[in-house]
């Protein structure tokens, strides 16, 4: 029986390709004959190899900062705790509490001199009879003859940077924020914060929007922040450039700060994530430090003739361009960033940072950190004013406004205690360095160390964990 000679259908090859693919697809779905490639998967080979996410988890992160400046200067202890509630779709509600205890001596702005110097500050808050009882170490209460007002006086020995040890402060701050996935490609966030200390209050609100482009390789974001601060000096706000005295001063002063940050985060390649931020901030209102003074010195000897309360402009426009990079080099992760900053007070600065996170074992890593910073002086920065010369409109001797550079060297240690929990610790030294003696300073000031930068060590100890 002769089978009918059916002609072979045309288009065999294309159909065959399809059939083959289906076959391989169907059979490929079978278990791999050899089973998993290697011995049963070991816990993450190294601690950096961790892609756990917080989706659907509540994350608690607590840390304490111990900050200590050399030679008796400022010292703070700052515990903080945050709780973040993560939904499974990326919405995050977070609250953070911070408290900050500050003690120690703060430079009062006067220049050192070859003789001891005595400074007089008010002891009674304006309109109240209460007297500062415990004038902390080194200062004493004196009743001025004639006026009968009680003032606080403290003396700085010769050749020493005048500092006021009368500072004790307790600050409390609450930050809250909510961010949500607005659409598969975009996120929005809103937030606010309140911070109070005995002589300063601050409140801010912020909002942000970010959008993913090019299959999430690029994220553009914009953030706005509006802040309202109120300076409430213990003994009222002194009139700028008036003589330092024990009299009660004026009332409180406030300022507003508006900020915008525009950022682009770009995946450069599989191991490199770059982030470019431009931020601009305008602050208007009272920006002077009510407790700081500036020495007016004798034009010949350089000796202090009087002390004036400092004065700063009432507006400041700041801009900075920041580029951060995260690079995965083999098992280590590098974080390299640079920032250029400029503001309307004449301060230009360059900051460069590098952190290298090196995994030691599967549960521990070390992260050496280094930072270099250098800034130019503000236009109105002076170590001192010269008696007899016309007073400038603005003048301050605050080292934060002077020309200096600083290096930070730190080491962070991370210990993984669970799939989503980690103990972390960072020890760091931050050292500012500037021109200590100024050869062409007036008279004997040339041999005094006018630089009042800090040399601080800080230790942060923290523990974070998450639960469903």
């Amino acid at each position, binding site marked *: 029986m002769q089978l009918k000679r059916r002609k072979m259908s045309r288009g065999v090859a294309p159909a065959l390709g399809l059939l083959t693919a289906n076959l391989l697809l169907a059979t490929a779905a079978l278990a791999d004959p050899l089973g998993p490639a290697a011995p049963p998967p070991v816990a993450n080979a190294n601690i950096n190899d961790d*892609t756990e996410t917080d989706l659907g988890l509540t994350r608690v992160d*607590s840390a304490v900062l111990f900050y200590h400046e050399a030679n008796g200067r400022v010292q703070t202890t700052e515990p903080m705790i945050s709780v973040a509630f993560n939904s499974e779709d990326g919405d995050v509600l977070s609250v953070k509490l911070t408290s900050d205890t500050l003690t120690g001596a703060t430079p009062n702005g006067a220049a050192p001199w070859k003789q001891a110097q005595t400074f007089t500050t008010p002891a009674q808050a304006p309109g109240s009879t209460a007297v500062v009882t415990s004038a902390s170490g080194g200062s004493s209460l004196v009743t001025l003859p004639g006026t009968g007002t009680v003032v606080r006086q403290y003396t700085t020995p010769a050749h020493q940077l005048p500092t006021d040890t009368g500072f004790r402060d307790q600050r409390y701050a609450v930050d809250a924020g909510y961010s949500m996935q607005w659409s598969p490609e975009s996120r929005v966030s809103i937030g606010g914060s309140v911070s109070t200390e005995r002589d300063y209050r601050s409140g801010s609100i912020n909002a942000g929007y970010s959008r993913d482009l090019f299959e999430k390789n690029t994220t553009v974001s914009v953030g706005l922040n509006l802040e309202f601060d109120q*300076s409430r000096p213990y003994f009222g706000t002194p009139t700028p450039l008036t003589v330092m005295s024990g009299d009660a001063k004026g009332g409180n002063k406030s300022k507003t700060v508006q900020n915008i940050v525009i950022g682009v985060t*770009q995946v450069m390649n599989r191991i490199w994530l770059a982030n470019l931020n*431009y931020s601009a901030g305008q602050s208007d209102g009272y920006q002077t430090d009510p407790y700081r003074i500036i020495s007016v010195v004798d034009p010949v000897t350089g000796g202090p003739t009087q002390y004036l309360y400092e004065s700063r*402009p009432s507006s400041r426009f700041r801009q900075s361009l920041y580029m951060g990079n995260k690079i995965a080099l083999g098992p280590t992760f590098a974080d390299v960033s640079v920032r250029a900053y400029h*503001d309307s007070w004449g301060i230009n600065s360059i900051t460069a940072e590098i952190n290298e996170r090196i995994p030691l074992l599967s549960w521990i890593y070390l992260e050496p950190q280094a930072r270099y910073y250098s800034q130019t002086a503000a236009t109105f920065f002076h170590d001192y004013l010269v008696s007899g010369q016309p007073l400038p409109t603005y003048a301050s001797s605050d080292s934060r406004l002077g020309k200096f550079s600083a290096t930070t060297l730190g080491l962070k240690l991370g210990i993984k205690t669970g799939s989503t929990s980690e103990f972390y610790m*960072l020890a760091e030294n931050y050292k500012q360095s500037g021109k200590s003696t100024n050869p062409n300073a007036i008279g004997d000031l040339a041999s005094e160390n006018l630089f009042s930068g800090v040399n601080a060590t*800080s230790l942060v100890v923290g523990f974070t964990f998450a639960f469903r």
Partner: protein
Amino acid sequence: MRNTRIRGRVSGRTLTALALLLSTLTLPACGALGVKPWDHDLLAQRAMQLNTHPHITACHEHIYFSKEGSSGGRTFDGGGCGCN
């Protein structure tokens, strides 16, 4: 924003111009960079996030804000404390 802003010296304007130039240049170029969505394995690592330890970043912001003239960059710069 009150308009009595002190005129920044030239370098202020150049910084703004530089920033705008950079953003206009980088954005279109961004399209060419990047990896396939399934090649984000290293980028998804926890250690690759821009802010792995928020509290440490906050401590740094606080210290540097109160000891230096500049601030900001990574996040909002802002006072929040009458630190001195």
